[in-house]
């Protein structure tokens, strides 16, 4: 059956598609390469695939700097997820995605479909999604708009994760006015699979059949890819289909059906359809293997009548996967799909010619080399160091607060520091019964693996520090992620990064992006940890003020815990035990919660990392933790030493008495000593008989370490020069820390 395309009533979408949202250079490149003017279907495909969102045209050359190889890395960047060999035939897959723009206009649906998207990435490697983590960023919690976004995003994640039976085991949240209109909603997903059952997104075998499985194709999400690559404007509210409707129960069926097909060894290639829809899926799966694909769009089940070929090619309808199988396995696949009541269509086959051939019945509606479609020309971007950085570096020091006890209470109740229980109690964090360490208990979440090892997972970001100093701020983020892993007794194995910035066409924004990649790359190379994937999200800016968000690189890190490693939490365990501080505290107050929250001050010197020392410290700490001589541990991060000690104290319902004179430091002021966020510091609780041994083991390596005090049955007490300097009752600290977020969220709109 042929279909008259030209006579079709022009929909609004098509009229828009006729003006490709491409640069002049891209238009020229397309015409030159094809030796003709692309038709409207081809323009639509190129527009979708060459959007920043799908093509990484501004970031790819820089991302290549990141180390991606390692002995445990089976699959690195460039696929739907990275794959790590965790031994005994098991693999773990890891990926991070964001759904920032959809969540900014429909926080519930946007966040839920964000979870759906990353789960599909994990699934498309043939692995079962087993855990989610959610790094989130919102404007000030004082703003009702931000609270509305926050509340709905958390519910969206919770409901979706719960429905598909995947636990949400961790995450982090940061509040900063730069995210007021453009919240950041990131989702990390971890999968578990068998090494011999891995499926790659490559169409390696000409002749294989192409199946489209899952939801039917509708007009929703059309221009979604280019939508994400456009700065959010108010009219987003009226773009009818920019946001998807989440459908977690269909997703659950897809997960089970796909894994059954994986188990049956019939999948020869697989790809999830996300941004860029069918165009992106087909082009990439063919380009990766150097093959071509021919499909007939008229075979695809559509949800709306009269969909145009261009619309079908770029639709981003959710819950769809492309499966490649051999002809002889067709019956088996169909049986599985029918059993799970999934709709599906055989739409074409893999070819040798390297071309994407798109037909509607007998008519060819688009034809272009797959590699050409899949690989957008790189965009050249200029980078200029922003001048505001000089201003930020020179901010004058604030006055010393009169009552440092009150300052500590205020910091504990800052939403960036306060307990996040309000968030994670909404999540199901135990479904699947793999969760050993739950949210809030330690610096990383811990999941048990089938081979007696366990998996440590963490995610970190710090946009305040990355704003004041893009290089050292970013390095601090990576350092914190790895410190969190090690504090849980895990050896860091791999990370994925998510780099979120404003418009890359702005040279100052692009400079901060380059600095972030340089920082991540330097850190990972020094610590020999590979980056196995990631994501870049540009155009995150406020539609009203036109200001970009603060640079927000987010790191998700994965570590392995060897069998028999003791499980060590943050909560203090026993009175009379000693407290040890490891690492040096300096006047590094830039981007600290103390400057930002207490003094409303952005600027100053951002904490730096000594890479050589960091490597030695983490190795040595891991050895110490494995020895079983540590009772509890917490890394020092937001809010500094005082906050870290208070958190351990509140969680363990034990007091602390700490002599500040004994803390290894080079600070010039008491407030800096208490609240500096200098990197690479830990607090350890030990039995008195083990203290000297542990302290000496670090000192021997040139790492500052000192016994600073002990666990008590009183409140939180800091001494200086033999006198009580700061004392707060436990109940007060506990109330400040536990009730801040629930109280803010109960405020009336």
């Amino acid at each position, binding site marked *: 059956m042929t279909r008259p395309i030209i006579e079709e009533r022009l929909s609004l979408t098509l009229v828009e598609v006729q003006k490709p949202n491409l640069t002049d250079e891209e238009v020229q490149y397309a015409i030159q390469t094809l030796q003709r003017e692309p038709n409207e279907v081809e323009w639509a495909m190129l527009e979708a695939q060459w959007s920043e969102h799908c093509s990484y045209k501004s970031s790819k050359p820089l991302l290549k700097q990141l180390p991606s190889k390692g002995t445990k890395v089976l699959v690195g960047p460039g696929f739907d997820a990275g794959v790590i060999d965790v031994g005994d035939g098991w693999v773990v897959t890891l990926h991070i995605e964001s759904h920032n723009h959809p969540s900014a*206009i*429909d926080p519930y649906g946007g966040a839920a479909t964000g979870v759906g998207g990353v789960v599909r990435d994990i699934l498309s490697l043939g692995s079962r999604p087993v855990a989610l983590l959610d790094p989130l960023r919102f404007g000030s919690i004082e703003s009702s708009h931000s609270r509305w976004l926050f509340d709905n995003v958390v519910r969206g994640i919770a409901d979706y994760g719960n429905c598909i039976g995947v636990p949400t085991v961790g995450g982090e949240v940061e509040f900063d006015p730069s995210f007021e209109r453009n919240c950041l909603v990131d989702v990390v997903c971890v999968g578990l699979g068998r090494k011999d059952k891995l499926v790659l997104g490559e169409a390696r075998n000409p002749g294989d059949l192409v199946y489209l499985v899952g939801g039917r194709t*509708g*007009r929703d999400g059309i221009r979604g890819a280019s939508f994400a690559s456009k700065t959010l404007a108010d009219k987003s509210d009226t773009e*009818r*289909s920019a*946001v998807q*409707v989440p*459908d977690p*129960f269909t997703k659950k069926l897809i997960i089970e059906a796909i894994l059954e097909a994986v188990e049956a060894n019939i999948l020869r290639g697989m790809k999830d359809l996300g941004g860029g829809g069918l165009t992106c899926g087909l082009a990439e799966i063919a380009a990766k293997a150097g093959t071509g694909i021919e499909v007939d769009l008229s075979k695809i089940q559509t949800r709306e009548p009269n969909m145009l070929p261009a619309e079908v090619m770029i639709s981003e309808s959710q819950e769809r996967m492309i499966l490649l199988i051999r002809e002889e396995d067709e019956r088996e696949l169909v049986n599985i799909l029918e059993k799970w009541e999934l709709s599906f269509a055989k739409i074409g086959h893999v070819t040798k010619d390297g071309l994407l051939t798109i037909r509607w019945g007998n008519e060819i509606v688009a034809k272009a080399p797959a590699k050409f479609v899949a690989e957008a020309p790189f965009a050249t971007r200029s980078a200029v160091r922003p001048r505001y950085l000089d201003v930020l570096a020179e901010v004058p020091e604030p006055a010393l607060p009169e009552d440092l006890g009150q300052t500590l209470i205020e910091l504990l109740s800052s939403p960036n520091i306060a307990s996040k229980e309000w968030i994670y109690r909404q999540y199901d964090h135990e479904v699947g019964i793999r969760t050993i360490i739950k949210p809030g208990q330690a610096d990383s979440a811990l999941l048990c693996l089938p081979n007696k090892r366990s998996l440590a997972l963490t995610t970190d970001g710090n946009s305040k520090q990355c704003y004041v100093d893009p290089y050292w701020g970013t390095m601090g983020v990576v350092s914190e992620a790895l410190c969190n892993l090690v504090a849980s007794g895990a050896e860091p194995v791999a990370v994925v990064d998510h780099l979120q910035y404003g418009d890359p066409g702005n040279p100052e924004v692009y400079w901060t992006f380059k600095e972030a990649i340089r920082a991540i790359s330097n850190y990972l190379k020094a610590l020999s940890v590979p980056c196995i994937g990631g994501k870049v999200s540009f155009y995150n800016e406020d539609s009203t003020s036109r200001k970009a968000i603060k640079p927000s690189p987010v790191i998700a890190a994965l570590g392995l815990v060897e069998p028999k490693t003791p499980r060590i939490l943050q909560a203090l365990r026993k009175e009379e035990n000693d407290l040890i501080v490891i690492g040096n505290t300096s006047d590094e107050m830039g981007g600290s919660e103390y400057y930002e929250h207490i003094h409303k001050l952005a600027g100053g010197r951002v904490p730096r990392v000594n890479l050589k020392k960091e490597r030695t410290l983490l190795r040595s700490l891991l050895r110490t933790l494995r020895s079983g001589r540590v009772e509890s541990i917490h890394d020092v991060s937001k809010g500094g030493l005082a906050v870290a000690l208070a958190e351990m104290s509140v969680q363990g319902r034990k007091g602390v008495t700490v002599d500040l004179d004994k803390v290894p430091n080079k600070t010039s002021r008491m407030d800096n000593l208490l609240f500096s966020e200098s990197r690479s510091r830990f607090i350890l609780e030990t039995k008195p008989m083990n203290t000297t041994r542990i302290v000496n083991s670090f000192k021997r390596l040139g790492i500052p370490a000192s016994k600073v005090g002990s666990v008590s049955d009183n409140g939180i007490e800091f001494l200086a020069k033999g006198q009580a300097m700061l004392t707060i009752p436990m109940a007060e600290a506990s109330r400040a820390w536990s009730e801040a977020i629930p109280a803010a969220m109960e405020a009336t709109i």
Partner: protein
Amino acid sequence: MSPATFTLEVIVENKPLARDPEGETIHHNLILKGGYSQVTSVRAGKLLRMKVEARSSEEAEQLVRKLCDDLRIYNPASHICQVRVLS
């Protein structure tokens, strides 16, 4: 004119061209499997029935529309919202 009590209904549903997994599930798993093949589509939504004190039905409707917008009873990015006066 003295205030009277009006009954109004607010109906919130997904935009007509957006998906509606709840309606689809009811249609497919309940209605079609139950043999009612004459039913070709089901859309699910949310209904709020409110009693409002106002001087006129127009005033009541305006008030309810305003509260639906202000308090985000629905999200204009993904829903349509109808307000109708019953009595």
